[in-house]
């Protein structure tokens, strides 16, 4: 598969049923967690090593009109994934279809990806020392099936297809939705190198608790593009200097002792 894929999350169609949450657990054989209600109908407000997608609800009462917004959260599968950049052991890779995957054989659970994802999606199982997140159902996708969440979505809020075609669908839908929701926007089209999960939000990202402009952390760029490739050279340089000195001192010493009749430098 070579074309980039995309899941279009149309929150104007989502009814917040959490079907995607359960389908994800079922396909990926993830155990249930013991939860409590946190707020409203929310019993999960972040991903965990065994919860790769969850639903959030946002209430906004404005001018006598209620807005009950909802969206599912999961790995965005960025075009320019910070997690992949942060991974020190090369366990994270990206497929041509756009999926960002953690190779569990290589993952050491260091959590660098966890700290550097702008949405904090990957989560480390501290007992297994492995980090987990949504795989985009890569095994289904690569075998011609839709991701489990998309496949189960009753209200049709999730659509899956080639990225270009999906973006066209998303933009057309946005035009329509803007008539009733002027603040509606597409979230993810150009963020983080273009995400694989692109949302049609009915309100500004902040209303959904999302960063408006998620970026690869500058600390990560500094770290991975400057410090690690160049800064590290200081150490071998120091080593080389030491080796150089080791020989030069002895050579000079030998030369001077010849000229000064074997007298040592006298330190």
């Amino acid at each position, binding site marked *: 598969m070579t074309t980039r894929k995309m899941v279009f999350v149309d929150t104007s169609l989502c009814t917040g049923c959490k*079907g995607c*949450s*359960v389908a994800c657990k079922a396909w990926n054989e993830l155990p249930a967690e013991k939860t409590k209600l946190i707020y409203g109908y929310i019993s999960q407000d972040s991903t965990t090593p065994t919860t790769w997608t969850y639903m959030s609800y946002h209430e906004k009462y404005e001018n006598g009109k209620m807005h009950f917004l909802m969206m599912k959260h999961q790995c965005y599968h960025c075009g320019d994934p910070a997690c992949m950049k942060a991974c020190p052991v090369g366990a994270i890779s990206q497929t*041509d279809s756009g999926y960002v995957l953690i190779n569990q054989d290589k993952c050491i659970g260091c959590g660098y990806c966890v700290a550097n994802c702008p949405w904090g999606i990957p989560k480390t199982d501290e007992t297994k020392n492995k980090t987990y997140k949504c795989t985009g159902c890569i*095994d289904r996708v690569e075998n011609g099936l839709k991701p*489990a969440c998309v496949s189960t979505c*009753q209200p049709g809020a999730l659509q899956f297809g080639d990225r270009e075609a999906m973006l066209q669908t998303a933009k057309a839908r946005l035009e329509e939705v803007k008539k009733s929701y002027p603040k509606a926007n597409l979230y993810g089209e150009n963020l983080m190198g273009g995400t694989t999960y692109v949302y049609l939000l009915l309100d500004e990202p902040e209303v959904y608790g999302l960063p408006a402009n998620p970026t690869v952390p500058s600390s990560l760029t500094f770290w*991975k593009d400057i410090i690690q490739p160049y800064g590290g050279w200081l150490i071998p340089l120091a080593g080389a200097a030491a*080796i150089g000195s080791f020989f030069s001192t002895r050579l000079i010493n030998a030369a001077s002792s010849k000229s000064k009749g074997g007298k040592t430098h006298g330190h």
Partner: protein
Amino acid sequence: MNVSRRSFLKASGITLAAFASGLGFDVAAAKAQGYALKLEGCTKITSICHFCSGGCGMLLHIKDGKLIHLEGDPDNPINEGGLCPKAASLQQVAYSPDRPKQPMYRAPGAKDWQYISWDEAIERIAKKTKEIREATFTKTEEITNAQTGAKETVTVNRAEGIAVIGSAEIDNEECYLLTKFARLIGTPFHEHQARI
């Protein structure tokens, strides 16, 4: 002393080489790997969701008699593969450790169940049914004829002491047989949660 110096050099060299070759970000190769599908080799059997009255089709993937996966049946025109959370969760019922393993009996006044065999359970139920039926049976009763106003005796063949609550969660054939069962043993007192 010489030896240790040489080993120090050697170690430095290795470290140097490692740094030289390995520094910088190693861009992960984006190669399509062969992702095995757990559904390979499964038999697909369709079923129908057990919850609301949508009648959504479910697809069960079975291997060696074991349920491997359950999801929406994409060929069912009602749900086209979609399932709500309740339906999507149904594979957890298949091997739930919380399902009672065999018939259970609770004696009068008892504080807990005891396991019994199917034979014993059916025997007890049938005997009790006969006992209650015999004890509470109304063969005839007197009514007032609505047209003539005359009293008359009619055959009603009613087992007054038995009630049957059926279910909207079992199959048609079962509902039908239950209706037939109730009326054959003599009880018109047959209801279910469609009233609720």
